[in-house]
């Protein structure tokens, strides 16, 4: 136990020396600012604006949602500024629609919607079956994405940076002669990164989603964060033990970032669907985290068993690699 405490102390010191803690704090502040003052404001898309040029006043019953303009030039300028808008020229007594083309279907909808405003009727509201408002959705969505990105980057890169530092300092060689279990060397790092990730997830969720909404989803979010953190940290350890130096490691990081994360983000956050994505392990982990944020259906037992099996295999691989590294170091 004393040896484990010493290992923990050494790893905390290494993380502090690598400016890990202030960097995490800076990222937490940046992400919080982005969620609260950036993304939530960006994610607004109103329905098409409709401009009406009706000098003779033939469209007296037109909806108040229409913007009346005094000249065709004013309407042209408005359409040029907002390419989604639709113009109605009623100067000849008959309505003529003017719009910048997008897709055939969207243009048809824009035209029909604009015409419907000429004869307004008391439309009933659509039935709402979900529990989130657009702002809550935007907050949960971006917090989930940032958390996934940060854990993947910090867990994966951070643990590797520490291990490479130790390699260069000869710490692994020293460990080979110390009367200490190999598992403890790996466990102290995993525990520290797990704790850091959990604290980061807790703070980011509270600051990003809001305290009131965060409370109910935190247990599931922290559980998913723990699984993701362990998997990423162990993958980082295996890669760091496999590769020669940190430069080579950054390549593995790039490959993971581009090939592994991009399709997952694309499928999970947009309407793009790829059939093969169900074979992608990151997809299930990301969806676990996303479902936790949106309190959607809980993952089945197969998912948790898969995660635990993955963690066990990665830990065994890391243990084997570490033993090999110690034998190589002498």
């Amino acid at each position, binding site marked *: 136990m004393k040896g484990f405490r010493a290992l923990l102390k050494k790893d905390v010191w290494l993380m502090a020396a*690598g*400016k890990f803690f202030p*960097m995490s704090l800076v990222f937490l502040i940046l992400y919080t600012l982005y969620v609260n003052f950036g993304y939530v404001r960006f994610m*607004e*898309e109103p*329905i098409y604006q409709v401009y009406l040029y009706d000098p003779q006043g033939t469209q007296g019953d037109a909806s108040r949602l229409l913007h009346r303009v005094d000249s065709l030039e004013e309407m042209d300028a408005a359409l040029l500024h907002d*390419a989604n808008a639709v113009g*109605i020229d009623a100067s000849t007594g*008959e*309505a003529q629609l*003017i*719009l*910048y083309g*997008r*897709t055939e*279907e*969207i*243009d*048809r*909808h824009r*035209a*029909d*919607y604009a*015409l*419907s405003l000429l*004869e307004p*009727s008391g*439309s*009933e*509201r*659509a*039935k*709402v*079956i*979900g*529990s*989130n*408002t*657009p702002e809550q*959705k935007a907050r*949960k969505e971006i917090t989930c994405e940032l958390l996934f990105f940060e854990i993947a980057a910090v867990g994966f890169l951070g643990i590797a*940076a*520490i291990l*490479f530092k130790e390699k260069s300092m000869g710490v692994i060689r020293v460990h080979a002669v110390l009367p200490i279990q190999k598992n403890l060397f790996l466990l102290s790092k995993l525990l520290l990164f797990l704790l850091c990730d959990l604290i980061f997830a807790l703070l980011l969720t509270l600051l990003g989603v809001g305290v009131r909404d965060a409370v109910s989803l935190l247990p599931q979010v922290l559980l998913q964060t723990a699984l993701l953190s362990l998997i990423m940290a162990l993958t980082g350890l295996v890669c760091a033990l496999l590769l020669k*130096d*940190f*430069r080579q490691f*950054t*390549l593995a990081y*790039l*490959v993971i970032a581009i*090939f592994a994360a991009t399709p997952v983000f*694309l*499928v999970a*956050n*947009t*309407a*793009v669907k*790829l059939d093969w994505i169900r074979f992608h392990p990151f997809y299930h982990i990301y969806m676990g985290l996303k479902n936790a944020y949106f309190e*959607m259906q809980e993952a089945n037992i197969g998912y948790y068993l898969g995660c635990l099996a993955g963690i066990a295999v990665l830990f065994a691989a890391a243990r084997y690699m570490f033993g090999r590294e110690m034998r190589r170091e002498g």
Partner: protein
Amino acid sequence: MKGLRYQLKSVLHDKFCLMTFLLPVIVAAALGLAGQIDFSSLGGTLSFGVLEEGILSHTAAWLNRYGTVMVYRTPEELADAVKEPSTNLIGVETAGNGIRTMVSGDELEIYLRTADTLPVLYERRNQAAEAKVQILERPGVMAGLGDMFAAAILIVAMFMGCTFNAMNMISEKEDGVAFVNEILPMTRRQYIVQKISVGFIFGCLSAVFTACICFRFSWKNMFLMLALIVLSVFVSALVGMLIGGASEGLMTGMIDIKVVMLLFMAVPILDFILGISQPVLSAVCYLVPSQATFEGILDLSAGGGAKAVKDIGILAGHCVGWSFLYMWVSGRRSQYHKRAI
């Protein structure tokens, strides 16, 4: 020249370094192969969910005029699809002679309003639309999302010079080679030229190959693209030198690169998606060099050229600005070292 040969030799021996430069080329090829991905579904199209037995065929055909219609077997499946946060699916059911819509409630306003007004549009579907529709062309207003991805990959290719230079310098510091460099018969200018050249040459090669895979240009635009690549890679090599000089360890270096990379990617992509039209904000975006590169690439891919020339001018300004900044920073750093010795 001899020093540069040694630098290139050491790079060519490092297979992983070569892989770093090949990575954007591989991604570009993968993007080309992934042509089956339907990016059009990202562009704000409408999609409707209906029940297999709960909707009339002519209603489904009418919905199809506005967007995609997805058919679900049970009401639960339909409700789950509507609630799914990654889509903006509008559920549609038959209600008497009309239709009833349902939404999750977390959609953007455009989808909520569409769902609210859809029953009215359906009621009036048979009223012959007398209005004439004039659809105007506005070339280059919205380049395809495929072009955006290709331009983003090209920026990554240009950025590789920065990553390589920064990592190379940090590794030299960690291995103690930086101290050896100080006693070599080599001036500071020679050192800077050699370091920039390596990132510059490989960054250019990587970007040229990526551009060849992603885009097809006319001869004139090809030269403009080459100018964009050369200037952007030069700036990114200088940025890499600045990061390499400022970072004390691999960890901090990686984080610095991550921040700069995020900035280089996020600014042009956000500008593209949000369509920033405010002049001051737009000018601020141009302070990030990748903004000019991105705009230039999109202009060239749309067959333009005039805007790309302006972007080349901005990048040339960046080259001069970043060169002075690097000279000033490295001058101060060497003075500090001399004083420390």
